[in-house]
């Protein structure tokens, strides 16, 4: 009988590196981006490596992965990689392979782009496809937004890098808190406690402990243990539902989206920045979420029209001011935009630096 293998870790990456990379490992000299979606890296040795970046919906069937394998076998000596934004990268030393490979990929509906000043692919999460706390569907939103930004993905049409993200609840599994444009699913009401027979389905003390704000208290119903939620303390995070199925938070009427801008992670030029609220609430409107798509388009257009080369959205807003950004986008500024959480004071304008 075989011994059950455990803790073997991930396979060694070295076996997955194409020979040109093994030879030029740590000795790359510079890169160029000859066209959208194509990068050229040149080694100190003079060796050249072309990479073709292909946009992916991230949710891939094995059929598509096998198709990618076919492409890699045909053009790339059997090597490929994925990026930190779920794109696929086909790498080759054969310059002549580039155009045919792109043609073939595009022919099958795979967009080539996402480099330099193009719209990035969208970092996203599970949504209705797989998560129980989701306030919206992530994959669907991404599809609608990227359909709209398709030409911005395949062209270097923007002033600078633009990174997008979607998350389906406040847990923000991804980059929503630090993206140029982010769409965030939100609940607006506390879970509805299904009080009857609750204790049969959930461990009451664990659920109470799961609440980050201490909003959940034990209660008694028909002589049996149950729970109650203090509405004014609840911030709709869904952590309790993860612990107890009798506290569903999804609520078709009150769930929806919010839109955020101006975050970044890179230390390039300016320091990393958190995303900021611009649209507090848009109701869920599947399957195409037109209001969300419109809002994103509006933001991208303002960025295109007013951003200067290299400026991320945050850098641009620094320059023109938030007042002008709201004016240009037409979004309404409301009391929801004014922070009232822990560090709120630091966001108040404690100066007379004002633009009229």
């Amino acid at each position, binding site marked *: 009988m075989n011994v059950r293998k455990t803790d073997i870790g991930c396979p060694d990456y070295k076996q997955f590196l194409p020979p040109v990379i093994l030879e030029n490992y740590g000795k790359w000299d510079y890169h160029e981006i000859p066209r959208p979606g194509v990068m050229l890296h040149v080694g100190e040795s003079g060796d050249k490596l072309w990479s073709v970046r292909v946009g992916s919906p991230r949710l891939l*069937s094995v059929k598509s992965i096998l198709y990618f394998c076919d492409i890699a076998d045909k053009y790339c000596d059997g090597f490929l990689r994925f990026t930190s934004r779920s794109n696929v990268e086909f790498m080759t030393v054969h310059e002549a392979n580039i155009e045919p490979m792109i043609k073939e990929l595009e022919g099958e509906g795979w967009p080539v782009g996402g480099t330099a000043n193009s719209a990035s692919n969208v970092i996203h999460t599970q949504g209705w496809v797989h998560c129980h706390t989701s306030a919206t569907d992530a994959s669907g939103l991404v599809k609608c937004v990227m*359909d709209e930004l398709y030409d911005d993905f395949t062209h270097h049409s923007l002033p600078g890098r633009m990174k997008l993200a979607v998350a389906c609840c406040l847990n923000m599994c991804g980059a929503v808190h630090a993206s140029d444009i982010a769409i965030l699913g939100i609940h607006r009401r506390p879970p509805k406690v299904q009080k009857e027979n609750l204790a049969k389905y959930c461990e009451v003390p664990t659920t109470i402990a799961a609440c980050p704000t201490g909003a959940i208290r034990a209660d008694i119903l028909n002589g049996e243990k149950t729970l109650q939620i203090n509405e004014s303390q609840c911030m709709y995070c869904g952590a309790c539902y993860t612990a107890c199925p009798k506290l569903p938070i999804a609520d078709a009427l009150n769930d929806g989206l919010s839109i955020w801008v101006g975050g970044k992670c890179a230390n390039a030029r300016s320091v990393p920045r958190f995303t900021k609220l611009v649209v507090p609430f848009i109701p869920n409107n599947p*399957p195409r979420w037109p209001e969300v798509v419109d809002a994103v388009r509006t933001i991208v257009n303002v960025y295109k029209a007013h951003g200067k080369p290299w400026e991320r959205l945050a850098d641009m807003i620094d320059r023109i001011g938030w007042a002008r950004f709201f004016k240009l986008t037409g979004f309404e500024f409301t009391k929801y935009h004014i922070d009232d959480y822990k560090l709120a004071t630091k966001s108040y304008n404690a100066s007379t630096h004002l633009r009229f």
Partner: protein
Amino acid sequence: MSNPSSETPLLDELLKGRWPSFVKEMKEMADTKPMVRDVLRQLEKSYVDKKTHWKHGGIVGVKGYGGGIIGRYSDSPEEFPGAAHFHTVRVNQPAGWFYNTQALRDLCEIFDKYGSGLTNMHGSTGDIILLGTTTDELEPIFSALTEKGWDLGGSGSALRTPSCCVGPARCEWAMFDCLDICHDITHHYQDEIHRPAFPYKFKIKVSGCPNDCVSSIARADFSIIGTWRDHIRVNDEEMTRYVANGRNPINDAVLLCPTRAIEWDGKKIKIDNENCVRCMQCINAYPRAIKPGLDRGATILIGAKAPIVQGALFSSVLVPFMKIEEPYDEVKELLESIWDVWDDHGENKERIGELVERMGKGEFLEKIGIAPDVQMVIHPRENPYIFYDEFYEEEDDATANK
């Protein structure tokens, strides 16, 4: 029986448009897999109802592991029997997300055989994700994976699968070997990944330079980000060539430098290295003409996380500069001393960044044995609420007055 597409009119709208469609991906598997068909039908219901139809319910996993599987159940198993169980399996990706086709074909075969045949390439933390299988298939899938050299990733209150940027494999700016340290750490801490024993999750992400292509500073409890200590290297000839090709270093570098540390007089690049904050802008704009220095290592930062509960945190500087060299002992010692303090002082579900915030960074530094450095803060404290360790007792007072 009707064609599955007619069962999902709303989702079918997402087959339209130019961007690759996840619905198409799912439908491709639905043809052969009733499980996926039911998941699609359930998703259609979500699109109608505007709410999720997944519920949580108990932990599932493989023998000897405390994580790596996310259990998921339909809230309407009668209506969607194929979706009754639909757990995800998190598989640890190879450093840098490089593959050869053989390896991917192996994975596909396993995912097709034991599950939905749907994946996320990759999950937000970096894992390869098999999106959907049943409780029964978990042990078989695990055996098949390990057989081919794959292991599970993390979940729960454990170390999560570390990830890294493409780094030295394909980038001229990698200040150390991100792939190697990522691989090494993953292997070194198998137990911490597979058997949750921390107060909460812990993520490590490794970027080769301050561009931070894995968003380490925003999404990792422990961020390793490459940097250099010595002078930027400049090449005036290359810059002259860029200029000849129509580039304008005043706009692309000089005016964008956050500390006005770079000058270009049409002939020579001048860097005020004492004031350069390693922001990469001039280097990003002119890779052939301006390059990082050669005394290389990394800045270690601590504490990033998403907003639940105290608001989002970025990682902040813990070690301004550390050499990153095999066998990475210095990094490991630091990690372990952090985990020790977290173990002693962290509350349940308290991320390390929240602990640092609650305890105070000065106190935390003292506990892990690192000397305070002014680079760790944007500026010194603004309020006078200093709790002094040193003071005289009343008895000293009495003595002193004598």
